[in-house]
């Protein structure tokens, strides 16, 4: 219990991932949904780093850098879409955009 191994990090990452997925599913506000997506990205990064340490090589950390870059691009584009939605509907509630019956 007091010896921290890779599976401790994996379980923590699973918790963060599940919290993020739940946030994506339950919230109506698009800002919070985007923040939950960031939680999911972070859970994935934690996994990559835990495995990088487990195997003693750097590939996981390199992949995490790429993942962070993709997360930054995703946040920029997602918030751009949010602003477009807000300009169109004057709200950030996701169920105000239902033209495609999603």
């Amino acid at each position: 219990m007091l010896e921290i191994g890779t599976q401790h990090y994996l379980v923590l990452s699973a918790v963060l991932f599940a919290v993020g997925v739940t946030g994506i599913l339950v919230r109506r506000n698009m800002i919070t949904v985007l923040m939950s997506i960031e939680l999911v990205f972070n859970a994935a990064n934690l996994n990559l780093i835990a495995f990088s340490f487990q195997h003693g090589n750097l590939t996981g950390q390199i992949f995490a850098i790429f993942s962070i870059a993709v997360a930054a691009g995703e946040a920029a584009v997602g918030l751009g879409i949010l602003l477009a939605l807000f300009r169109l509907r004057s709200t950030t509630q996701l169920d105000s955009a239902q033209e495609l019956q999603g």
Partner: protein
Amino acid sequence: MEFLTAHGQAILFYLFAAVAVVAACFVVTMRNPMYGAIALLVTFLSLAALFLLRHAEFLAFVQVFVYGGGIMVLFLFVIMLVNVDRLKESRVFVPNAPLAVVVGLLLLGLLAVVFAGMAFVPADAAPPAFVDVEGTAMGNSEAIAWSLYREYLLPFEIVSVFLLVAMIGAVVLGREQ
């Protein structure tokens, strides 16, 4: 004191893990997105500490700079721009939120059972030693730089093009019609 020095890694892990999970729950449940963003910042910073505990020093600082700095400023800026006070939402959660929570718990149970059941060879407590082509030892950041600019040069360049595309996309989406 002896206990603290002997189990410092474990204590720090549980401390930062608990902070990260509680703050993540706040992100999901807070009514005001501004409080959610602050909770998200706390999650990012405790994850950076956890990266340090796994000897990913460079990534811990990238986490603080990119997530704690850049992405967080982006979120706060947008939250202020859309003026949350005006958006008095009557309902915070979607109508079938309990079902979604059950799905999330099932996902968590599945992942946790699989992960907790995995048996790993205990990794070395010391950080792996990296050497360059001439055999001199180097630190984490230097090793990542070598790896990034030699083995992963093409993906690195592709990511820079991707960031350019994302930037143009954000500008196009965000401009006044």
